[in-house]
């Protein structure tokens, strides 16, 4: 247990390995195809879908513009309802709070509700170092944890595993973590779910402390909301005495009634259902019902860095529905691991650089380039985040961050060469002739729209054509056509 993304190679390297895994690609194509179909049906049912998204975006933008005030209000409301509020600047702060609560109660085992924030801060590994075992209870998280694997999707972290692989993981790994899988376990999804139910029930019934995240935190009332399917969330939020919720500061919404937008958008956009099976809401401590000691950790961990970017702060609207992953042609082919973060796909390509900053880690700096800018992610986003726009914005930021580097990057060299060619009429004419010639020789694959394509160029150029087709240049360059009198009636014929 406890693999992390630390030390992952940058996207282009990791993607190459992933692309070679045909099983992975089959699993992903099947899963993302299924969810896309379901989602389209659920979204089509609401005629005002676009407007709901626009209003949800407006609510989020308003909230972010006064985030400090809403956070203070949230803290007050929570405290008034008997919850203890903690603030965490970074992962270390947040993990320390959780470990501290466990230690004060002499607890060495906690159950966990699936939560992106706790994955982001590496909570399980931090707790393990303190001798505290953290058990994931979401089925997909359980598969990842037992398989000593890494999550590859926001909603379905084990999306890269098929049923046969899951059966093998349960058969070989469950016993070491608690109740073993039944001997006659098959790869029928219902049987696999039943095995998880038995395995985890023991843990739910005896757990004294749970750790969760929250999908929303209502400033006005102090209400936290967790949206889920399996009931593992309800188990964790209800049965133990002590509950600690780690909540990113961007999860706050001002009023209770604002939920009437998000509870309509999230399930339909996420799992393609009218509503997810279970939504739990709790406001501090309710005497005689549920945990009697409630902690909330308000987590920054880079969110204020993202907030400082006036254009890109729209990424903080994200409600983690994962729709952008499911429509992304890049994600569908390489899967989530190649992004080297718990946030993969298009949202990962923008949120990681925003949370962590650019110019320090080549792995992070490569992410804004892990996209074809096809725009599918921005179209599908229920809170109208212009993901392609933010990607381009971040590419600029990455380039700016490297301006003072002593060794130029490959891109910089290529652009410099292009500038040299384009900057002089004679050199350009030569290059056009050469390119036109190459086009005649290697008219191979076609491009959309019936255009020819160059699929091979000699070195330097091959760095490009190794991975992409270069649109075929016209047989005659604009400059040659112009010289020939192309601008006149005569020449046009």
């Amino acid at each position, binding site marked *: 247990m406890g693999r992390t993304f630390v030390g992952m190679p940058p996207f282009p390297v990791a993607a190459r390995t992933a692309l070679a895994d045909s099983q992975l690609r089959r699993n992903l194509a*099947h899963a993302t195809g299924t969810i896309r179909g379901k989602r389209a049906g659920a979204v089509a049912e609401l005629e005002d879908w676009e407007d709901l998204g626009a209003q949800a975006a407006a609510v989020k933008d308003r909230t972010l513009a006064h985030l400090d005030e809403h956070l203070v209000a949230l803290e007050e409301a929570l405290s008034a309802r008997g919850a203890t509020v903690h603030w965490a600047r970074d992962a270390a702060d947040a993990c320390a709070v959780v470990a501290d609560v466990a230690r004060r109660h002499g607890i060495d085992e906690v159950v966990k509700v699936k939560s992106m924030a706790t994955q982001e801060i590496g909570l399980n590994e931090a707790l393990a170092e303190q001798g505290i075992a953290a058990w994931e209870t979401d089925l997909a998280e359980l598969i990842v944890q037992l398989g000593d694997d890494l999550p590859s999707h926001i909603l379905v972290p084990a999306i890269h595993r*098929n049923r046969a692989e899951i059966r093998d993981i349960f058969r070989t790994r469950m016993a070491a973590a608690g109740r073993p899988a039944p001997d006659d376990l098959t790869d029928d999804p219902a049987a696999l779910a039943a095995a998880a139910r038995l395995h985890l029930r023991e843990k*739910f019934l005896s757990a004294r402390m749970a750790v969760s995240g929250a999908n929303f935190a209502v400033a006005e009332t102090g209400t936290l909301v967790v949206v889920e399917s399996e009931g593992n969330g309800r188990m964790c939020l*209800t049965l133990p005495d002590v509950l600690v919720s780690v909540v990113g500061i961007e999860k706050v919404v001002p009023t209770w009634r604002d939920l009437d937008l998000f509870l309509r958008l999230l399930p339909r956009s996420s799992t393609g259902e009218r509503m997810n*099976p279970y939504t739990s809401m709790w406001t501090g401590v309710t005497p005689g019902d549920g945990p009697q000691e409630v902690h909330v950790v308000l987590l920054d961990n880079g969110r204020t860095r993202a907030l400082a970017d006036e254009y890109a702060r729209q990424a903080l609207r994200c409600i983690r529905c994962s729709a952008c992953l499911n429509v992304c042609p890049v994600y569908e082919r390489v899967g989530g691991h190649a992004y080297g973060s718990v946030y993969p796909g298009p949202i990962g390509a923008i949120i990681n650089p925003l949370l962590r900053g650019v110019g320090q880690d080549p792995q992070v700096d490569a992410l804004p380039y892990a996209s074809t800018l096809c725009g599918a992610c921005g179209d599908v986003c229920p809170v109208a985040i212009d993901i392609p726009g933010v990607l381009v914005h971040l590419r600029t930021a990455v380039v700016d961050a490297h301006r003072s580097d002593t060794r130029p990057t490959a891109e910089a060299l290529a652009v410099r060469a292009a500038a040299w060619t384009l900057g002089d009429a004679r050199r350009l004419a030569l290059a056009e002739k050469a390119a036109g010639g190459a086009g005649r020789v290697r008219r191979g694959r076609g491009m959309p729209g019936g255009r020819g394509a160059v699929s091979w160029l000699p070195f330097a150029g091959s760095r490009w054509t190794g991975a992409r087709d270069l649109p075929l240049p016209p047989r005659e360059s604009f400059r040659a056509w112009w010289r020939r009198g192309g601008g006149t009636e005569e020449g046009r014929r």
Partner: protein
Amino acid sequence: MSTRDDVLAAVRAALGPDRPLEVAVDRTYRDRDPLPPGADVVDLFAERVADYRATVTRCSPGDVEAAVAAALGAATRVVVPDALWLDVPRCVPDHGLSAAELDAVDAVVTRATLGIAETGTVVLDHGPGQGRRAITLVPDLHVCVVAADQVVAGVVDAVAALNPTRPQTWISGPSATSDIELDRVEGVHGPRRLHVVLVTG
């Protein structure tokens, strides 16, 4: 400085002295009918609850106890909350049963706070007749009695009607997962069967 001051100072620094202009939120979505034209709220509720592979039975006020007894089938131990006001066979009142004791119970019968037609959802705020959260979670069968006049059209109406200081559980069908190849399977940790008794007339 405390971590609280640090985080709040970082938020203020990020926003800078000139806060972005107020963004207006247009709330007209609240006035729109969320249901297909001509749909009957109660019929649609029943239909959409059933879409999740939950069972729905309709009955008149006089037949509620019979409908509940039928829904319970062979369940031998049935936990009931205070103020249910129904005669339930083989019932075990909830006097603070432990989680392990609840695990030995087959079923639970409750009322609800409201139902939502748009989504086929039942909402419990765990007040009288509904019991604390654990009793509707651990047993394998949940029989939930909903009166027709408790059904609202949409999520907007539900949020407006609910009391945020109450703990709430929104239930849309039995527990389910799509974590294996995104293939939906009913029945993981919560009740594997949900039976809604809809009282009309």
